[in-house]
Every structure is written in C-alpha cells, then in structure tokens.
C-alpha cells in the first residue's frame, strides 16, 4: 500500500519541487473539511513565511490509517478519530507517548457527538436512547469490531444506560443487549451503515456522528431529521505530529504550525462550517443554531480512557462478543 502512496505522491509532487510537502493522514469524514483548511493554511503560511506549502491528504478508516502509518506511510501529521489509534502509533515508537499534552485542548481541535437520524416526521417517535430498545424498532449502527464510530455509538448507549439505571453495569448490559437485538445489519463501516439506512431504506433510526448526520440533512433536507438524545458522548478526534517522520523530512516547524493553526479562530470556523463542533466556546456560540446544546460525557470520565474501554467492551471475548453468545 505504501508504495502506491509513494508512487502517487511522486507523480503529484514532481512539478513543484520547491514547495514544502506535508502529508496529513486522516479518517473518512474529514475529507471536505481538510480540503478547505489546507487552502487556508497554505495562504496563511505563505503570508507569514513566504514559503509554498502543499498538503496531501489521505483518508480511510481511522484504525487502518494508523496501521498504515505504523507500517511506513510517511505521515507528517495524523488527524484521527480515536486517541487510541494515535496511542498505537506512539507505541510503535513514531512519536512520544505524551503526545496528547503537546497541543491545547488535549490535542482535540474539533469535536462531535453521537446523535440519531430518523425518517422525516419521526414516524416511530424516537426521542432518546430508551426508545431504541422498544420492540419493532430497527436500529442501524455498524459493527464496533470493525468501525470506529460504532464504538462511540456503543459507548454513548452504555453511558446513557449507566446514568439512567443508577450506574448499574448489569442493567447497562441488559440495555445494550436489547438495543443490538434491534439491529438487523451490522455494516463493517460508517459509510456502509449510512448506505443501508439511506439507499436500502432499512431501519427506523441511524446512529452516527453528528457531523455525518448534518451532511445527510444538507443533502436530503426533506427525507430525514436529526434527533439529539438527552445525553451522549463527547467525541474528541485528535491530531498529532509524527516526530520520526517530520525530523527525517525536515518538516517539523511547518507541520507544527499546521496543527496549531487548527486551534486559531479561522481553523475553528472552517471546522464549524464542515459540521464539527468548535472546541472554542465563542466560535461554538456563533454557530448555535446548527449545534443545539447537548449534555455530554467523555470517555475518560465514564470509562477511564480508551484502552480501558477497549479492554472491557471490544476485545476478544469481552462484553460486545457476549451480547451475541446467548
């Protein structure tokens, strides 16, 4: 795979030998956002230093992208969905393990949350997580074993159940069991789930990133509406410099500036425009019609971080596997 990337970049880069090149390895739903952000950053960097900078993007499933970087994909920066994926890159020795404390806001420039998409008019009357386990409701969410967003969906449901049933793990397990009994198809990724819901017209409710749902609404305003549950999880996509690669390529300063600029007002506004919640409260307030207030919890608060959550829920034989055993 990395040879394909090298080959493509050779072709793309050859005419512009004088420009600095950065490779941003990201996950799927950020494609349009980074297209616009890259232009803004190139302009900013040119004005500030006079240097041309060209940013290449690579998108795919967050975990797969992390593995590609570990296996040698030449990323200057990684902008992935889960801190756990960058942790895996850190464990491979490409960047220090304390990477998350090197940038503001825990290295998370933009946020999203998990919400519901229902068919126009909300015919099944779905308003909160509790409605998803009613008999006859079909819920569309991908497989947490193969999809990053599906893990957020699962943890959001679990977190709500904990709050709602008095912090009782047993009752939470019972809740997610019922929920997944209402899932007719476990697609392998978020896009597949969206296709199942939108094209195959299967299911009454789709659980997904708020940013993906906002995109769906923009495309088909007459077919769907978004339901914000009473409590959800705060998804914090993270960004980091890949030290080993930038030091070898001599791109550290510009790559660092590229990430820092994400936290500037302009970077935050572009993110908000592309359906991400800004991590800056003032910018978030500017867009408050698009982003209604929502009560959220973080993975660290409820689950003690990603590695604990993975161990408890998604490892081989852990809770998610048990749901399907009996």
């Amino acid at each position, binding site marked *: 795979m990395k040879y394909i990337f090298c080959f493509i970049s050779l072709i793309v880069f050859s005419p512009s030998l004088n420009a600095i090149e950065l490779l941003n390895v990201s996950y799927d739903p950020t494609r349009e956002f980074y297209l616009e952000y890259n232009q803004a950053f190139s302009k900013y960097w040119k004005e500030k230093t006079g240097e041309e900078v060209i940013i290449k993007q690579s998108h795919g*499933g967050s*975990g*797969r992208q992390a*593995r590609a970087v570990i296996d040698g994909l030449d990323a200057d920066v990684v902008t992935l969905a889960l801190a756990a994926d960058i942790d*895996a890159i850190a464990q491979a020795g490409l960047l220090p393990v304390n990477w998350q404390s090197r940038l503001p806001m825990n290295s998370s420039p933009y946020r999203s949350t998990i919400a519901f998409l229902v068919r126009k008019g909300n015919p099944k009357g779905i308003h909160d997580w509790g409605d998803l386990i009613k008999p006859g409701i079909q819920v569309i969410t991908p*497989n947490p*074993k*193969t999809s990053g967003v599906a893990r957020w969906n699962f943890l959001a449901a679990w977190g709500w159940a904990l709050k709602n049933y008095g912090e009782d793990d047993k009752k939470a397990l019972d809740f997610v069991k019922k929920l997944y009994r209402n899932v*007719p*198809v*476990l*697609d*392998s990724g978020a896009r*597949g789930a969206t*296709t199942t819901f939108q*094209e*195959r*017209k*299967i299911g009454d409710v789709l659980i997904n990133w708020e940013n993906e749902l906002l995109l769906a609404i923009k495309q088909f305003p007459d077919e769907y509406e978004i339901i914000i549950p009473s409590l959800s999880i705060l998804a914090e996509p993270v960004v980091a410099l890949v030290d080993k690669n930038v030091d070898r390529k001599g791109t550290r300063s510009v790559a660092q500036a590229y990430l820092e600029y994400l936290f500037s007002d302009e970077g935050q506004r572009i993110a908000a425009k592309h359906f991400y919640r800004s991590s800056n409260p003032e910018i978030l307030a500017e867009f408050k019609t698009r982003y209604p207030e929502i009560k959220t919890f973080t993975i660290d608060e409820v689950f003690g971080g990603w590695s604990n959550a*993975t161990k408890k829920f*998604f*490892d*081989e*034989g852990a809770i998610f*596997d048990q*749901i*399907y*055993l009996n």
Partner: protein
Amino acid sequence: MSNKRQRILPGFHLTLGICLTYLTLLVFIPLSTIFIRSSGLGWESFWRAITSPQVIASYKVTFGISFLASLTNAFFGFIAAWVLSRYRFPGHGFFDSIVDLPFALPTAVAGISLTALYSQNGWIGQFLYPLGIKSAYSLIGIYIALTFVGFPFVVRTLQPVIEGLDREIEEAGASLGASRWKVFWKIVFPSLLPALFTGYALAFARAIGEYGSVIFISGNMPMRTEITPLVIVKFLENYQYQQATAVACVMLVISFLILLIINALQHWSVLIGQAKN
C-alpha cells in the same frame, strides 16, 4: 567435451529455476510469514483464538456456504458451458463474454449491486421477501454472492474440454444403439468429470477467500452471518495481528486439505476414465 546428458526438451534447468523462484517469492514466502507471525502467540492463546465460539461459527458459515455455492456453480456452470460450446445461437458471443464479468468486476461493486438487487426494496428482493425468502443480510445473501463470484471458474474450465471432446466416440455409441441419455451418461460425462472437479475446486477456493462482495450483503451478524475473512479483519482492526494470522492459518490448512481431497477425486476420475477405455 562435457558428458552432461542432454534432455530432449531444452531449457529444463532455466525454466525450473524461474518457476521455483517465482513460486517462492509469490506464494511460499508470503504464506510462510502467516505461520511465522502466528507462532509468536503460544499454543494456548493460538488455540483460544481459533476455537472461540464466534470464530467456529464463522468457519461453518464460510465453508458450508462455499460448499453449497460451488456445488450450485458446478451444476449450472456445466449446463452453461455445454450450451455455449455445443450450440450456436443469436447473442452467443455476448453471453460468452458476459460469463467473465464476475472475474472483472471489483468485488465491492459486485457486493453493492447484489445488495441493491436482493434487499427488501430491491428489484429482485421485493418479490422474494413476500415469499419468506430473506435474500439479503442472511445466509442466503452470502450464498448469492459466493455463487456469483465462483460461476466463471466452472464454465471456463469445462468449455475447452467440451469443445475438445471427440465426437466420433459419441457417434459410434449412437450407431451401436445407445440412447442419447446413455451416450451422455456413459461417454460424455465421465470424460468431463476431471475438468468439472477442477472447476469446482477453483470456485470453492475463490468462495472461501471472498471478502469484498460478501460483507455488503451478509449483514455481518456475529454467530450467524459472519464469514471467516471478516473475523480476520476484526482481529486486524483491534491490532491483534497474531490472532488474525492464527485464524488465517486455520483457513489455509482447511482449504489445503479440501483442495487435496478434490485433487484426489479428480485423479481418481481420470483413472476410472482410462480404465474404461
């Protein structure tokens, strides 16, 4: 003067060398890394990885449905190969080239279009669902996808053999008073059987390894409609490389054994044919 014996066909050492190097680089080294990578796991965790209930359930789905799908292909592929090589009819060339389509189509495209056709509101699915046939997101869906990808293998292995059949033997049989059915059953079919086994084996091997088209139509429900290749991907997504390669080892060994059996059957059918002649 050298005393080296000359073979009648020149180039033996050169071609053998190229063949072995090629096989080593392309097949043997990649496959052996699978065993090497999984060997770091230790026997106990290796065993746990390959015998967990979900993985066992996926073997049943993958091997069971592959068996049925390639059996279907052996039957219908035989008829298709027969029609395409024995008869000439309008559109012959078109149908002949359409057979190769499952070879050429990217598997994800195949999966998405099959799902679109066979799901509840799809062109074909809308008629099957009222009959109680869940043709997508079910074992039937997996069966459809695996049949689709395996079809050309049977047709393309049988076609040249049917075309090469000696018609005079059939005519001789007929002139000696054998019925058409008897000619087919006693003369034609036994000479096609080895090729049929080969086609079956190819279709079966393809079905076992198929991933791209199946995951769209299978629904991927753990314990019910998960194929083994998906289980491997699940391990990879969790950075469990060794467990993934452990399951890959199992697939490799089982596939190898099955192909060995099919090859033995094919060999046996050749022997039977020769004994008869």
